[in-house]
């Protein structure tokens, strides 16, 4: 039972990182970023490629993936999202387009396949990220089998969640972000540079997605479609937790991740997904704004 919970907890952790990014970008900008999953995917490929070409291990890959995804997020914000401000459906479609472009860039090896050049680590196939053996070797502690890699994921997630909490609730930029989430016009009228702060928020949320990608790469195969698969779950977590609520996102990721983990061990993955969807629908009917939500937007 403990091991089941533990496996559920590590999946939950990755889910939480993905959902945190989605939640703060949607909360601050009203943007549903359909390319968020692809930022996860880019993070995973950053780990694979930096492993092959730079000899980076997972510890070095994490900050690099954060930076890569954050810069890419910033670019998406500048080139696409900023031009479609306040047009939710257009933004949704445009970022979906960005998602497809990013997937194709990886599949077509940045277009190099057209010139017959192959880039190792890219392409339509499956990739693996190497994880150091001391993170893979389970060991026994007080009668319980400890999976070091899963523990690592959980610890990284806890640290990043605390960092996010600190940024949001204990810094000036966090106050600005929360003000923008609640009333962007009033925030601007109080001297907050809404565009700049929103762009930074977007970059941060994208960076978290990048890190989630690295962690995911440690126990899933890396492929161009991987982001699209996980991001749906990220959206579910956001909807259940309440947009822009850190606590809601954490609890909701925990709830959905654990339900998924437990049911898939007791029955199977397909029933687990069905149960998760049923719970999500139930919660949305009960509380349309999510479990925790300030009334706004």
């Amino acid at each position, binding site marked *: 039972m403990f091991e089941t919970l533990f496996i559920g907890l590590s999946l939950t952790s990755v889910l939480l990182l993905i959902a945190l990014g989605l939640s703060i970008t949607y909360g601050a900008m009203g943007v549903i970023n359909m390319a968020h999953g692809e930022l996860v995917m880019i993070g995973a490929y950053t780990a694979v490629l930096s492993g092959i070409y730079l000899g980076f291990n997972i510890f070095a890959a994490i900050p690099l993936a954060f930076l890569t995804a954050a810069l890419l997020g910033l670019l998406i914000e500048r080139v696409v999202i900023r031009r479609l401000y306040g047009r939710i459906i257009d933004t949704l479609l445009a970022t979906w387009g960005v998602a497809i472009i990013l997937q194709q860039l990886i599949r077509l090896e940045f277009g190099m396949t057209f010139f017959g050049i192959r880039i190792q680590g890219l392409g339509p196939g499956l990739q693996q990220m190497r994880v150091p053996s001391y993170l893979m070797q389970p060991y026994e502690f007080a009668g319980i089998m400890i999976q070091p890699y899963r523990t690592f994921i959980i610890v990284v997630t806890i640290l990043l969640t605390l960092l996010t909490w600190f940024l949001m609730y204990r810094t*000036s930029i966090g106050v600005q972000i929360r003000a923008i989430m609640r009333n962007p016009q009033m925030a*601007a*009228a*109080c*001297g907050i*540079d*809404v565009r700049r702060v929103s762009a930074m928020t977007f970059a941060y949320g994208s960076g978290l997605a990048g890190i989630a990608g690295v962690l995911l790469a440690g126990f899933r195969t890396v492929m161009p479609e991987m982001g699209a698969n996980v991001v749906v779950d990220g959206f579910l977590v956001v909807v259940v937790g309440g947009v822009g609520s850190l606590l809601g996102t954490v609890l909701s990721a925990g709830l959905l991740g654990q339900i998924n983990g437990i049911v898939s061990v007791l029955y199977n993955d397909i029933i687990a997904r069905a149960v998760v969807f049923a719970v999500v629908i139930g919660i949305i009917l009960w509380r349309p704004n999510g479990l925790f939500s*300030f009334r706004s937007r």
Partner: protein
Amino acid sequence: MLTLHNVNSFYGRSQALHDLSFEAPDGQIVAILGRNGVGKTTLLRTIMGLTDRSEGRIDLGGQDIGVLPTFARARAGIAYVPQGRMIIPDFTIRDNILMGGFAAGGARHIPEIVPELFPYLMDNLDRPGGVLSGGQQQQLAIARALACKPKILLMDEPTEGIQPNIVQQIEDSIIRLNRELGLTILLVEQNVDFAKRAAASFAMVENGTVVASGAIGTLTDDLVSRHMAI
């Protein structure tokens, strides 16, 4: 001095201000008068850069602020107390006030005059803004605007829908802010008696433009009944 030259302003495709010109001399309270729906709120929102689009020149002390984004106008010294107050219910009273500080630059703090004007707010700094009564929320919105360290205060019907015992306090505080701190105030007001008592000049708005303006002494009953009677 705040001057508007031939300002047009739009919500989407519909035009809400038409060739509006008007000026607010430094240190004066200027009453903005007119019937419901004529564009008084839109005038303040246009000065703040909160309509979808505007044309014409908006001049603050020689600088055309009409081309600046909203946050830069706030930092240039314009603070906004909106109709409906728009405080943030789940922020504490302290955080609501300090929000204005982003326009002032430097470390944010509660302005010295706030405890004098609104002692109740100071005694409840850690409570959420949402628990306050309408009148207290109005005081909070004024305190937040003061934290912007403004040169000009835009106030939109500050006594609308507020219990009578607080109306007097708010009216007194508006007059004090002008007389003691020398703040220029654009005051949108339905109550002509208060406008006459507080303001030095007025601008009468009709159909999105200024149809009469001048020293408050020239605001005749005839003007009021022509442009404000329903």
